[in-house]
């Protein structure tokens, strides 16, 4: 990808004012370095989605010219977009990183987790994720979560302490003052760290354009076989769609988020370039998750409930 969009970083009032992207970048880098300085075994959650791709890009810049001092962890739902898995493996190889994979399918095959009637596997990620964190003794886990995504996430700290069961208690969060992040934790506990807390979807896209970051192809408009369920275009596949009465058709679509195929919807789009994607997002009247995530619509507090259990 080349950067041709009007996402100018240098336009500022005085020479000492940072552009908003530079300010967000500097803050995120500070967060990565704090974790590198204070924790023993940090890991970056990496799904091959745009937020985790931006996180990795920031980590690469934060420690340049040295290597990123963290490994990656992918929670594999078993319902992946092939382009995204290919991107994941290519990226890991290119930067000489170590990748851990926690597999939902393994848990289902072993009978530890049960397939849900609706076929959605996003909520099933919590157990493989938290067990892998415990098994590997990860003490800091970077997530790409942004506070603009969802109202429970708007309450999330940058450093979020999780107990030995990986649970989040929103009423017992540590106040976060200045940029003095408190990562103290007991053995068995860990801290979730969100370097993109203050970024919006548009910030992420503008940053991708400015930095010329490569993305999986599914983020750009392409022809795809989809069918409609609950107002969303889902990709037909071995995970269980379409069902009776749902018809497959070929449409020009792209994805705004990358998640489990069973609950991540595509949007109609002809945006084939970064410029076109940014124009489309700036004009959209729907939030990213509202447009394309079925799992957040399960109840008013779906995200809060999953986060309490250990979801990221």
């Amino acid at each position, binding site marked *: 990808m080349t950067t041709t*969009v*009007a*996402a*100018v*970083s240098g*336009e*500022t009032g*005085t020479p*000492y*004012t*940072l*552009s908003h*992207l*530079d300010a*967000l*970048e*500097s*803050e995120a*880098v*500070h967060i990565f*370095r704090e974790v*590198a*300085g204070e924790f023993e075994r940090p890991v970056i959650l990496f799904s091959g989605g745009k937020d985790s791709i931006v996180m990795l890009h920031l980590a690469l*810049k*934060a*420690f*340049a*010219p*040295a290597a990123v001092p963290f490994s990656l962890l992918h929670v594999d739902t078993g319902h992946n977009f092939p382009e995204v898995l290919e991107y994941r493996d290519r990226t890991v190889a290119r930067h000489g990183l170590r990748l851990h994979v926690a597999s939902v399918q393994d848990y289902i095959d072993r009978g530890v987790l049960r397939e849900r009637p609706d076929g959605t596997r996003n909520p099933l990620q919590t157990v493989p994720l938290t067990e892998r964190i415990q098994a590997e003794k990860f003490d800091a886990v970077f997530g790409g979560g942004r*506070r*603009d995504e969802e*109202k*429970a996430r*708007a*309450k999330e700290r940058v450093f979020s302490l999780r107990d030995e069961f990986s649970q989040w208690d929103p*009423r017992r969060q*540590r*106040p*976060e*003052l*200045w*940029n*003095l992040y*408190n990562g*103290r*934790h*007991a053995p068995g506990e860990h801290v979730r760290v969100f370097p993109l807390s*203050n970024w*919006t979807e*548009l910030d992420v896209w*503008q940053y991708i354009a400015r930095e010329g970051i490569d993305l999986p192809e599914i983020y750009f408009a392409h022809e795809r076989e989809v069918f409609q369920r609950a107002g969303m275009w889902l990709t037909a596949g071995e995970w269980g769609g379409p069902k009776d009465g749902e018809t497959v058709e070929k449409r020009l679509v792209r994805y705004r988020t990358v998640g489990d195929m069973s609950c991540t919807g595509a949007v109609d789009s002809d945006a084939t370039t970064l410029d076109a994607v*940014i124009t489309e997002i*700036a*004009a959209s*009247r*729907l*939030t990213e998750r*509202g447009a394309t995530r079925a799992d957040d619509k399960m109840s*008013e507090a779906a995200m*809060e409930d999953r986060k309490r259990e250990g979801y990221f």
Partner: protein
Amino acid sequence: MSTITAEELSATTLLRFATAGSVDDGKSTLVGRLLHDSKSVLTDQLEAVERVSASRGQEGPDLALLTDGLRAEREQGITIDVAYRYFATTRRRFILADTPGHVQYTRNMVTGASTAELTVILVDARNGVVEQTRRHAAIAALLRVPHVVLAVNKMDLVAYEEQVFARIAEEFTAYASELGVPEITAIPISALVGDNVVEPSANMDWYGGPTVLEHLETVPVSHDLAHCHARLPVQYVIRPQTAEHPDYRGYAGQIAAGTFRVGDSVTVLPSGRTTKVTGIDLLGKPVDSAHTPQSVTLLLADDIDISRGDLLVPSKDAPATTQDIEATVCHVADQPLTVGHRVLLKHGTRTVKAIVKDIPSRLTLDDLSLHPHPGQLVANDIGRVKVRTAEALPVDSYADSRRTGSFILIDPADGTTLTAGMVGESFASPEPVKDEAEDDGWDF
């Protein structure tokens, strides 16, 4: 329908601000109005609010539902914790720390104000300046938030009378100026009707100033470097030890204040060793100079012992190091802070053991009176504290640097963040400051 078009995306500065106001002052309505009228509420969010409002039998959409994210908040209809909101106009991006107004959540206002460059304080035009208003002004002054906006709300309920607004603005400005708040802007609004929030009011011809949004869009956010001492807390030492970079040794950190230039003589604190800056890497790119709040890596002439926790400063402008710190603090934990308490103190990137030697006074925010030697501070208390640290720290006065003049106290047993600390004098009093507990002035 779009908020921003691609051509308008060049407006790229960022303003962090916080709101403060009591439950009934209409803070949620103001925040909802700002988000709604700046077209920052997207269709699916508004639909969700409309759906829940309707299911509760409310007539219109309850905009407070946009900002109350937790189950308990929605159930109780109150805001418990700070939430962060994001919106943008063609002129600027905003991060709003939406803080609860209850007295018992003073700590949350402190949290929100600690990173804010501006605070909006709401008052009800019918009630004028009340104790809660003074409390909010005092916290903004203590935290040294550079800009304060007084939003006199519910002007529609006082017949849009200029006299009402003028009296409140005058009383507040006198009070806040005495506390040392550097810049105060008073704006008459009706958050419910939408007067002077985003759109100028047709009901108040006598008001010639900006709307709330216009002011947020134009208030300066640049860092006044002329008065800043350069400071770099070392976060991490970068040593690739690769064939390509066998000898690279860089000191990474976010510049807390001021500017560093290649060629500067710098001193490492607390050791006191001196060397020269031979290079500055700005996230992989070499630059001649860098300033706050950039995250950088400094390369130095001499291979001296420097590690995480050290502070790099210009040799000609080094702060004194001390093991005895006197500060104004806000206690943010449920367990009290007592004299003799053994704690950890995090300052910049350094965490050291410390002991609470004395709590000379506690402040009553309502009237700024002092209670000498309270013995302990409980949640939401603000007071003066003397702390002895196990190692000498290079602390600045909070008045000079919000970053290197602040610290947190941590409970070593369970890691709880106990207390937020600001080194040095508390309020920027225009009077000479005396350090006597009996003094009933602004120093305490």
